[in-house]
């Protein structure tokens, strides 16, 4: 990398490289997701054909079942809400140079803690008190799980990838034990309904959403995206965090304590993932149920990746993956809904591989143009 910036100024080349670097940045940001969608569409066609169906008809069905009616759209919003949280969680970690693969466990712990607070509060606690307390419980729950890799990374330099993977299993096993032995409603794998802290559905205001799980935790998700954007790009702490992610040694030189930034980023990441659990617990079922996370934490990685770790991109990517997920149900009668899970995985792989490829191509364009 440093070779590209080695001294020896060359006036003839400099303006060209500058131009390319600007156009290049935009291209580098948008090209990979677009390429990925194209590849996914082709793979989707093949899968649909393998089931003897018409791709055009299936994709039409998928769109009609999601953006085509209020219920479907409500479900997309509901799913996108959780994904926005987990996507933001992964994104803020990556901005600090950390890969939080533990969003799945943090999400579950957040949901559990929200339910726990809601159960501990007396019946009839006003919503203005109960909801913030439940949200705080969720954030704390997620952050507490994330504190383990945060501390181990900051203190011992332990790989946060390995620790978060392992911690997912530990967290889920622990919660399963709690639910199985201490807190469940008989013959079920969920807690009793919470006494306070329930969040209203969107359908209570807009009747067309009736039946869909979309609820006002959506606003918390959007606020979180706004906050993360402000934090990353408008605060000193965000400046420090991004510097640590890009060049830890330069950040250290600039007076930033790298270890504490890692810990703080991990705690924020965990808190965001934990808040994701409220969408199900407070906004939908009003109880914690084993396995409710159902991969939304892992999907957060895809959301952050496709959203290029930018809060606005994360919201858009969350909508995209939520559409795919809900669309799977819409087409399930014709082709197995797992088709969209395949497409999701294909999108992730395609983005992961096209990011470095696009950068390489851009570099060689600059080189070629310079000759």
């Amino acid at each position, binding site marked *: 990398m440093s*070779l*590209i910036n080695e*001294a*020896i*100024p060359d006036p003839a080349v400099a303006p060209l490289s500058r131009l390319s670097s600007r156009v290049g940045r935009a291209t580098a940001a948008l090209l990979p997701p677009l390429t990925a969608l194209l590849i996914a569409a082709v793979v989707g066609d093949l899968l649909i054909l393998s089931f003897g169906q018409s791709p055009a008809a299936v994709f039409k069905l998928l769109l009609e079942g999601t953006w085509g009616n209020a219920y479907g759209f409500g479900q997309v919003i509901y799913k996108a809400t959780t994904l926005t949280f987990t996507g933001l969680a992964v994104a803020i970690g990556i901005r600090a140079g950390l890969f939080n693969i533990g969003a799945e466990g943090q999400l579950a712990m957040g949901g559990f803690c929200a339910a726990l607070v809601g159960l501990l509060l007396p019946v009839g606690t006003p919503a203005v008190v109960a909801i913030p307390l439940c949200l705080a419980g969720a954030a704390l729950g997620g952050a507490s799980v994330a504190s383990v890799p945060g501390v181990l990374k900051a203190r011992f330099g332990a790989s946060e990838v390995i620790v978060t993977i392992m911690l997912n299993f530990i967290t889920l096993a622990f919660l399963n034990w709690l639910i199985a032995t201490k807190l469940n409603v008989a013959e079920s794998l969920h807690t009793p309904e919470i006494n306070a802290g329930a969040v209203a559905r969107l359908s209570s205001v807009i009747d067309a959403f009736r039946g869909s799980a979309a609820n006002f935790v959506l606003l918390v998700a959007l606020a979180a995206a706004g906050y993360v954007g402000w934090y990353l790009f408008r605060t*000193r702490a965000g400046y420090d965090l*991004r510097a640590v992610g890009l060049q830890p040694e*330069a950040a250290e*030189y600039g007076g930033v304590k790298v270890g504490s930034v890692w810990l703080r980023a991990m705690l924020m990441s965990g808190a965001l993932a934990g808040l994701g659990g409220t969408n199900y617990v407070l906004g939908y079922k009003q109880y914690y149920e084993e396995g409710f996370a159902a991969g939304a934490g892992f999907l957060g990685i895809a959301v952050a990746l496709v959203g290029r770790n930018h809060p606005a991109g994360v919201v858009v990517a969350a909508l995209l993956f939520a559409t795919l997920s809900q669309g799977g149900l819409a087409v399930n009668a014709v082709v197995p809904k797992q088709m969209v899970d395949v497409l999701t995985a294909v999108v992730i792989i395609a983005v992961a591989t096209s990011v470095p490829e696009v950068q390489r191509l851009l570099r060689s364009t600059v*080189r070629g143009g310079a000759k």
Partner: protein
Amino acid sequence: MGTGDGGRETGVALRAVGVSKRFGVVRANLGASLEVRRGEIHAVVGENGAGKSTLMRMLAGMYAPDAGLIEVEGRDVTGWSTREAIAAGVGMVHQHFMLVPTLTVAENLVLGQELTKGVQLDRAGAEAAVRSLCERTGLTVDPRRLVSDLTVGEAQRVEILKVLYRGAKILILDEPTAVLSPPEVVELWRVLRRLSSEGGTVVLITHKLDEVIEISSTITVMRAGETVGQVRTDETTPAGIARMMVGRDVRLAAEMEMDGGRGTGDGRAALRVAGLTVPSSRRPNEVDNLSFTVRAGEIFGIAGVEGNGQTELIEAIAGLRAASAGSISLGEADLAKMSVRERSAAGLSHIPEDRHRRGLVLEYSVGDNLILGLQRRFSVNGALQRERVQANATRRIREFDIRPPTPALPARALSGGNQQKVVVAREMRGREYSVLLASQPTRGVDVGAIEFIHAQLRSARDAGKAVLLVSADLVEVLALSDRVAVMYEGRFVAVLDRGEATRERVGPLMVGVETGDGGRGTGGSAEPGGEV
């Protein structure tokens, strides 16, 4: 070219003609040439960034040239691979060792050309082969030891053995002495002479003139990616080679020396270092019980071959590296226990040696880089004040003529000189400070920017700042400093006043050679713990 047609008769082992190579927007070589005769020790000299390493790597098959011709023993091998180069007997010893630390010496040696017994590795055979090679060359090392347990000198021996094991007849060494102690250098010269006397060809990259004179029979000088010329060692002088190497610098140095030493140096002690010992991953005393004082209103320059502890010294003062003993104080403040930020707040400014690694966040805009380390001053209640960041950027860009004048451009897109101006602007104008650490302040920077940065350093001195300057460029140290310390193996072997510090005097000290009067000037004693 001084070889004439003599080269033809003795046989040309290696030839490069008009070779060019570009990395992205950077031109590493432009029409570089080289002609090495069989059996000679050929030195390739030039400043940092002259394109020596790139040219050597093309000879060894690591890169393909964009243009030009490379011949080995008269055969066109342009653009060949490492494997082909090895097969043809061309081997390269890299500046950064190409050894696998978790493997043994024998395993590293045979890697890629393993001896086998059936389908299994023949370990005993490999170890025996290493031993016999050791005997033949006089380079000894235990084949069973792990490379991670070797000293730097031993690791280099393994590198050379590795190349010889592959039957190299042409040996290319990239700055082999940079990491060696003087006895190890002597040992290396002995081995190279032996190889050469047995018909082997040695090409050696270095920028140390004393080495060139001592070991080589022919010299090729490179500058800015081009070959300046080739001379026979016995037909030239160090001054002659230096003239070829630096070109412009000779004129620059002359002007600068006129200007140097105006500082009074009699201000109060601004930076005091006492008994400082700094460990590195390589040894426990990279900086060895060092004591000195820099006064307000002087430039205290540290001359020395790179790797003698300068980097560790500066990083320890800046708080980026832990010291194992000693004290550092700035005015009345004891820095030793302070964080990087606290040291900076206490009045320490730092131009780091590597702007790509430390001095700049390359993906950040010029504007954001101009506040690196000053984040707190540009924020209120934790929120960055974007307008002030912008206003600061506009102002510094104008003051320091940073081009292009676009605050939003990522630092990566700037030329080396302009990148360094960003660092200098931030560290010297953006803040209050009393002590400036300037480490390699003009490395990889164009001539115009060098003059500008030198002027800045002088005016800081004139404004009463204490400046601690470290540079691998002796001309620069001599031109700017009021006092010159010569650093060798973690200690100051001499501290000289402006008037005493001449090239002739400092040069030998840098490579650990004591001159007649013991190298101790009136500038003070260099004894450990002594006040300088």
